[in-house]
């Protein structure tokens, strides 16, 4: 699920330095926090100090440690104080994102907008800790779309992402539009490097079929989104 190879030599060297520094340290008591940079100390606190429940089992298999270790995009797009990295880094993120996208056999088609409506509303899935989401036959991870996107008037969505009300009405369902929407749901960094939008396909949150259902919710002329 996570691609751990580095975007650039500089990033790789920095990461190697961090991990080498971390693994050589035995116990918190022996470590001088003030001798580390803020970045080194943050990595140490998260991955080496026992400050987080890294041994918790996760739904995709393995443990939380893998989730807390950053992959290339996460590392490149984490900018202290906010903002975006430089243009070369953004381009590297964009290129890697485009290469990550896989397509369903038989091409991209719209699914069932009614299923898409429920998937876009559901914020269930992949949470671990004081209450752990048990993925099972009738309770699969949702798209979490409504957390951040406003879609139609019948249920309030968030405003962290753009308002998608009437999304398909203005755009239609051409092959190019289907590919664009599919790509953005699968890995939006292919168009908007270092976007806040989660990589729903690339991170294994949604299946090809679920993406098709959410696409129908956005693009199908029958969908309430476009009424």
């Amino acid at each position, binding site marked *: 699920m996570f691609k751990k190879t580095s975007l650039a030599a500089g990033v790789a060297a920095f990461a190697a330095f961090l991990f080498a520094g971390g693994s050589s340290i035995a116990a918190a008591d022996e470590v001088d926090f003030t001798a580390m940079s803020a970045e080194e*100390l943050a990595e140490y606190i998260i991955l080496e100090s026992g400050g*987080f429940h890294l041994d918790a089992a996760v739904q995709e298999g393995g443990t939380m440690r893998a989730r*807390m*270790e950053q992959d290339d995009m*996460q590392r490149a797009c984490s900018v202290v104080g*906010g903002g975006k990295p430089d243009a070369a880094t953004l381009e590297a993120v964009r290129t890697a994102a485009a290469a990550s996208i896989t397509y369903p056999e038989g091409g991209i088609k719209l699914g069932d907008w009614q299923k898409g409506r429920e998937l876009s509303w559901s914020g269930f899935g992949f949470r671990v800790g004081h209450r752990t989401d048990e993925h099972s036959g009738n309770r699969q991870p949702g798209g979490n779309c409504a957390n*951040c996107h406003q879609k139609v008037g019948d249920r309030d969505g968030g405003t962290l992402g753009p308002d998608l009300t009437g999304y398909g009405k203005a755009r239609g369902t051409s092959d190019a539009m289907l590919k664009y929407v599919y790509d953005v749901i699968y890995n939006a960094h292919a168009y908007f490097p270092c976007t*806040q939008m989660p990589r729903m396909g690339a991170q294994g949150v949604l299946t090809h079929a679920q993406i098709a259902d959410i696409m129908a919710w956005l693009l199908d002329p029958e969908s309430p989104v476009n009424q």
Partner: protein
Amino acid sequence: MFRKALLALPVALALGATANAQKAPEDVLQGLIDSIDSSYLTQSEMNLMMMPDSPALWLIDDGKDLFHEARGPNNVSLETCDFGKGPGVLEGAFVEFPRFFEDTGRVMDFESRLVHCMKTIQGFTDDDPAIRTKHGNAADITKLQTYVASLSNGHAWNPPMDHPMEQAMRDAGEVIFYRRAGTMDFSCSTCHAATGKRIRASVLPNSNVPEEWTKAVSWPAFRVGHDNVRSAQHRVGECYWQMRHAEPVWGGTGMTAIISYWNDRARGQPAILPDMKR
């Protein structure tokens, strides 16, 4: 310098007491609302109405009794506990956390310090309900924390940065705040770096606006949806759960670093203690 500080202390206490004596938590919040246009601060008219009758206010009295009562295997009160401003000094202590303590050699958040005193002074152990029970209105820790926090109501957040460890933890907390990870690539800044944004119907506080952020970090608070008073650690834990990250260990280095950065971002703004949240 130390002697001078001691002499000045009673004066500061008297001034603090008169300045804040009449100020209820809802008055502190109203002052913030009047100072800035914020849809976060004003999002729940109902909570503003309910604050004078907040169940958290009952916990203050319970916590006060517990604090001054001789308890634990050593049968002593917590009156000698040093929360950083000297043994027994509670007024304004809560807004100066997290803080480095010489006796433990580490930066501690308030709850960790409270537990440290319950263990070292009163003789409680991790297995005693007084320490083991960390959640809910009935927990001793909730009551004690709400009492001590209430004595910082209206005081400006002022976590010390004099010790290099305090600065190091705050700076690491800042990096963690912006560090994307996990299934959804979220970081704290995903939700808390812009003004007036919403997750579903909830307006989010912006960490870059101290007048908003002070309410965000003002815990303990009565959490209406939980029908219980919760602490800062509950809030951090729930955010990490929603982010699909690993939860920080209670009282651990991650929790302390995050809260060090949190409280620093509210610096200078008055704390609302105890607060009421959705």
